[in-house]
């Protein structure tokens, strides 16, 4: 896109420069003489006119209104010169040179800074004085259209001469078809033969539409359809007039017109009668009327009534454009047109036929033209808005449905008016009649209501009203408070593009609570689904009242599925929705990758290069086509690059959706701690810290159980009774703290108590008692290693089974869960002083960078850190070494195995590989060891969200988890270590099989 814009600016610069040079040359050539009289002068004026005209169009296309204004005036002046109303003397030429200089300056500015400049008002006024009123110019132009000798037809001169003669001589014969009753079989054949010969000649001369006329004439003749015959004979008249003009010979058009005169007059009478009927009803005046008027105009052309023809064409044109608009001035204009048409049939029968009165026709034409300008300006305003436009005004995209053409026009007017501001009022009018009536009269007063729409919030239907007002937010809010002192039913917010009004809102903190913020909090649940874009309309952070907890409404205390939007509004979205959303984005990333592949396909580039070389300086038409292709390709590449960036950003933002403050997890514990302590007669001060650290939402769910277990453990086993504590010289109240610290991409969650600590000796003794280790061995272990036994399966240091322990979840489960998240647990303890467990986790354990590949129909993912590289090998690179298939990679032997075989999937294709083409080998690493896995297809790298895998699937060896692709296909995420083991085992099996069967021939 931007490349196109760049191209346009470049072209604009070059083209404007060419016109400037041309104008300069033409103006200086004519300055010394009075160039209006001679032929060369006329051509010069025409060229000047065209150059200014082109500059005007180019400026308009590039939104350069100042330049357009200057060029337009110069064009108008030259239009007068061209029409003969003005001579190109120094008095005209000098201002034109000034205009040229101004245009040069404006164009330079535009090309340099890509912006519009300002036109000198004095210059514009001087140019206006020369150009005169535009109406007068139009009249001059209408009266004196530029006359130029036609560009002659030059093809097949001889045949053309023959054809013109044939046409001229055939006219009389053709008109015999008008009197069908008198036409006998011979006559019929004669007419048809003539038409057929002309049709064939037209085909030979490539006068295809003219040939069509003769064909339709013959069809009408065969069907004995007088209307069709007349219609086609009229067409013959017009076409032969054109042939005559372009060939410089008499093609018989005038003869035919004379022969048809009576019929034409009758046709005109019938046509005008029908037109009068249609014009009587403005609502019915549509395409049929326009078509009919055009046909009547053609008849009037033949009858040589140009003013009437012109007027009918203007009415037809206006009908096509204005009829659907239902403009109030239209019936009146149509009626005046009708009056003009009414007399035509009679005037045409006069001898000679009488055309419309010139002044009256010109006046009506002028009114019609002005009407079209006004009507199309109104239509422009009523044009539907786009989502982007609305968003730019700080409006909700959902509003589109409620903007009628009228309200769109109102909204445009409001947006264009710098003195008014848009506000959105939300009103609940069904409780209080006073509020309702007060609100309605307020709407009718100082504000302009643009549109309104119902919104279902919290089980009630609220009314939302978009209003424009010249007043500021505060007076409006005061006015609404006067109507609704409780502040419950009427809320107002300013619609502003993005963050523009934030400082303004922040400076009035006292409005918190009476503004729209509570409403937004209430409406949050309804916002999530139907109109996701609504989040963009969420209030700025400053409007969030302080009495609403930033994280969660009180009614939803323990939901791990809450997302806090940066705007402060809270959205609650089911986890599956986010998962699905992420999967779709993944799908988009895939498509964007494919697009990238197509856009960058070298073959296209090579083909274009070859084409360019072949073309050389040859055929300009082909070169234009080639340039168009090249341009298109560049635009594609540019779009592709933009799309990739945009998709990346989208992905990053989407990842944020998965991230929640760890508070949502921590907040679930205070109650538990209080309850446990109470039951056990202990007093515990529970502190939380670092709750704003953000972690992946799936981790909140996975961490809950382990953390809960550790908290219970701390209270059950760590914290002493108050009496015991006092005896040990500690405060009676124990302290238990839960805190989170972010370290780069990792988070450390620490649970610390100041209780009795872990007795190394007690752990050792228990481990021995439980048969986890021999007595002697245990004596040799370091204290740390001994304490590690608390994570061993089924270990418990408590001698009595309390209410809270013995729930089947031991520290072994805790450690497993944390390991699964990619984390680790460290223990710090001192007997008598307390214990701290530090859980070190990646911030988003659930997001796994993987390599996606395909075996058969199944999409598989191998975690990135296990993949060293992917290489291609041809079939002849595979060799058997020590009974195993291998390839040589960087001078080292790499054992290879089919991934399908390793996983026990049904395998397809040949093994070992045969035939042409490359085989893809993923080099899997585990520590220092490497093994190659042959795969069917490599898809891409991708970040996947690991879902808890289905219990059944978890049993399958090698499977670490599953994820979803956008099309709903399941991706199996392979466990790197397990995969290595499986691959090595598969190789051993293959080697054993090979040992038992004849060895394949190996070179």
């Amino acid at each position: 896109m931007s490349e196109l814009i760049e191209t346009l600016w470049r072209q604009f610069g070059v083209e404007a420069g060419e016109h400037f040079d041309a104008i300069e040359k033409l103006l200086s050539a004519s300055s010394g003489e009075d160039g209006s009289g001679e032929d060369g002068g006329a051509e010069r004026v025409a060229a000047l006119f065209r150059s200014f005209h082109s500059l005007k169009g180019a400026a308009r296309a590039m939104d350069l209104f100042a330049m357009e204004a200057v060029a337009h005036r110069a064009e108008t002046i030259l239009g007068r010169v061209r029409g003969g109303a003005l001579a190109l003397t120094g008095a005209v030429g000098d201002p034109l040179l000034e205009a040229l200089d101004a245009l040069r300056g404006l164009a330079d500015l535009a090309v340099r800074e890509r912006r519009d400049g300002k036109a000198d008002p004095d210059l514009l006024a001087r140019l206006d004085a020369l150009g005169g009123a535009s109406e007068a110019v139009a009249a001059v132009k209408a009266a004196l259209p530029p006359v130029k000798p036609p560009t002659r037809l030059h093809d097949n001169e001889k045949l053309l001469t023959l054809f013109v003669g044939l046409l001229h001589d055939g006219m009389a014969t053709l008109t015999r078809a008008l009197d069908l009753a008198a036409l006998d079989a011979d006559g019929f054949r004669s007419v048809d033969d003539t038409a057929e010969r002309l049709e064939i000649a037209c085909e030979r001369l490539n006068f295809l539409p003219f040939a069509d006329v003769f064909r339709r004439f013959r069809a009408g003749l065969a069907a004995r359809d007088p209307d069709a015959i007349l219609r086609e004979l009229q067409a013959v008249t017009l076409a032969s007039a054109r042939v005559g003009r372009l060939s410089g010979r008499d093609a018989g058009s005038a003869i035919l017109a004379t022969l048809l005169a009576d019929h034409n007059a009758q046709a005109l009478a019938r046509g005008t009668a029908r037109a009068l009927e249609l014009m009587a009803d403005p609502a019915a005046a549509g395409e049929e009327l326009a078509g009919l008027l055009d046909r009547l105009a053609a008849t009037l052309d033949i009858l040589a009534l140009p003013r009437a023809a012109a007027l009918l064409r203007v009415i037809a044109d206006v009908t096509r454009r204005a009829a659907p608009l239902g403009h109030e001035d239209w019936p009146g204009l149509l009626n005046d047109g009708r009056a003009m048409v009414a007399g035509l049939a009679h005037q045409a029968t006069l001898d000679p036929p009488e055309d419309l009165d010139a002044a009256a026709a010109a006046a009506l034409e002028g009114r019609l033209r002005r009407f079209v300008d006004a009507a199309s300006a109104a239509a422009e305003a009523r044009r539907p808005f786009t989502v982007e436009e609305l968003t730019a005004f700080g409006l909700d995209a959902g509003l589109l449905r409620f903007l009628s053409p009228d309200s769109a026009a109102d909204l445009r007017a409001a947006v264009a008016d710098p003195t008014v501001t848009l506000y959105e009022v939300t009103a609940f009018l069904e409780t209080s009649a006073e509020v309702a009536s007060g609100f309605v009269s307020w709407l009718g007063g100082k504000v302009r209501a643009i549109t309104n729409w119902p919104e279902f919030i919290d089980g009630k239907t609220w009314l939302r009203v978009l209003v424009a007002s010249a007043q500021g937010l505060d007076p409006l809010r005061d006015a609404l408070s006067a109507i609704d002192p409780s502040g419950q039913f009427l809320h107002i917010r300013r619609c502003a593009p993005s963050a523009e009004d934030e400082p303004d809102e922040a400076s009035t903190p006292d409005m918190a609570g009476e503004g729209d913020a509570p409403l937004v909090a209430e409406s949050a649940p309804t916002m999530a689904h139907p109109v996701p874009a609504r989040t963009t309309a969420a209030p700025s952070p400053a409007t969030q009242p302080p009495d609403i907890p930033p994280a969660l409404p009180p009614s939803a205390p323990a939901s791990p599925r809450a997302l806090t939007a940066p705007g402060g509004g809270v959205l609650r979205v089911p986890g599956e929705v986010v998962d699905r959303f992420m999967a779709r984005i993944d799908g988009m990333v895939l498509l964007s990758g494919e697009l990238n592949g197509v856009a960058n396909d070298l073959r296209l580039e090579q083909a274009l290069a070859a084409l360019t070389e072949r073309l050389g300086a040859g055929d300009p038409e082909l070169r234009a086509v080639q340039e168009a292709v090249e341009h298109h390709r560049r635009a594609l590449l540019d779009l592709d690059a933009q799309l990739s960036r945009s998709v990346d950003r989208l992905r990053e933002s989407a990842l944020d959706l998965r991230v929640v403050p760890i508070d949502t997890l921590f907040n679930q514990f205070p109650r538990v701690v209080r309850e446990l302590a109470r039951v056990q007669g202990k007093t515990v001060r529970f502190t939380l810290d670092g709750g704003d650290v953000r972690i992946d939402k799936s981790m909140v769910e996975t961490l809950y159980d382990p953390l809960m277990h550790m908290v219970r453990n701390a209270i059950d086993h760590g914290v002493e009774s108050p009496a015991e504590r006092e005896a040990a010289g500690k405060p009676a109240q124990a302290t238990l703290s839960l805190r989170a610290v972010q370290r780069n991409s990792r988070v450390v969650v620490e649970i610390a108590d100041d209780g009795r600590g872990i007795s190394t000796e007690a752990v050792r003794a228990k481990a021995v008692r439980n048969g986890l280790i021999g007595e002697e061995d245990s004596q040799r272990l370091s204290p740390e290693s001994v304490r590690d036994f608390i994570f061993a399966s089924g270990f418990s240091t408590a001698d009595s089974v309390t209410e809270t322990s013995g729930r089947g979840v031991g520290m072994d489960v805790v450690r497993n869960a944390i390991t699964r998240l990619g984390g680790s647990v460290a223990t710090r303890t001192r007997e008598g002083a307390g214990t701290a467990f530090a859980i070190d986790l990646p911030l988003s354990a659930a997001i796994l960078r993987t390599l996606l590949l395909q075996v058969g129909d199944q999409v598989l993912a191998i975690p990135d850190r296990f993949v060293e590289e992917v290489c291609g090998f041809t079939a002849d690179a595979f060799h058997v070494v020590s009974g195993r298939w291998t390839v040589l990679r960087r001078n080292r032997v790499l054992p290879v195995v089919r991934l399908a075989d390793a996983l026990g999937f049904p395998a397809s294709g040949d093994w070992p590989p045969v035939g042409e083409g490359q085989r893809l080998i993923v080099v899997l690493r585990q520590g220092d060891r490497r093994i190659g896995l042959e795969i069917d297809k490599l898809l891409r790298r991708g970040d996947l969200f690991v879902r808890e895998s289905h219990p059944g699937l978890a049993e399958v060896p090698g499977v670490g988890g599953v994820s979803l692709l956008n099309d709903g296909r399941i991706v199996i995420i392979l466990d790197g270590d397990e995969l290595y083991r499986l691959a090595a085992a598969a190789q051993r099996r293959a080697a054993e099989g090979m040992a038992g069967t004849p060895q394949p021939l190996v070179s």
Partner: protein
Amino acid sequence: MAKPTILLVDDSVLMRTIIGDIVRSDEDLDLVGAAENGKVALEMVKSLKPDIVLLDIEMPEMSGLEVMEHLSLTSRAKVIIISSVAQVGSPEANEARALGAVEIIAKPSGTMSLDLAHKKGHDIVVAIRRAAGLPVRS
């Protein structure tokens, strides 16, 4: 059904780029060529036989109306005039209509703010689709 083929005639490179881009934004249309003046246009009409010709009026060598005069004899192509000269009721518009122009529209303006969505609903695209008998998107 084959896509309607379109020939673009305008003496300005800039306009050819802009209008060409607008036409190409509609995948139902096939822009087969662009001519920089009337004479080239007539040659291209002869060889390319487009279904629709987008024609400027003010051009050097041979004006759009002259081109139409020839086309009205020699080509079945439908002609859409794209010109700011041919406003409703102007002599040029009348002449173009008399010569059989199916539609007369103004040159595009405000190109810089045109995005793809706008282009698809652009007057030019609408006019072409109407002339080609294709459904017009609302």
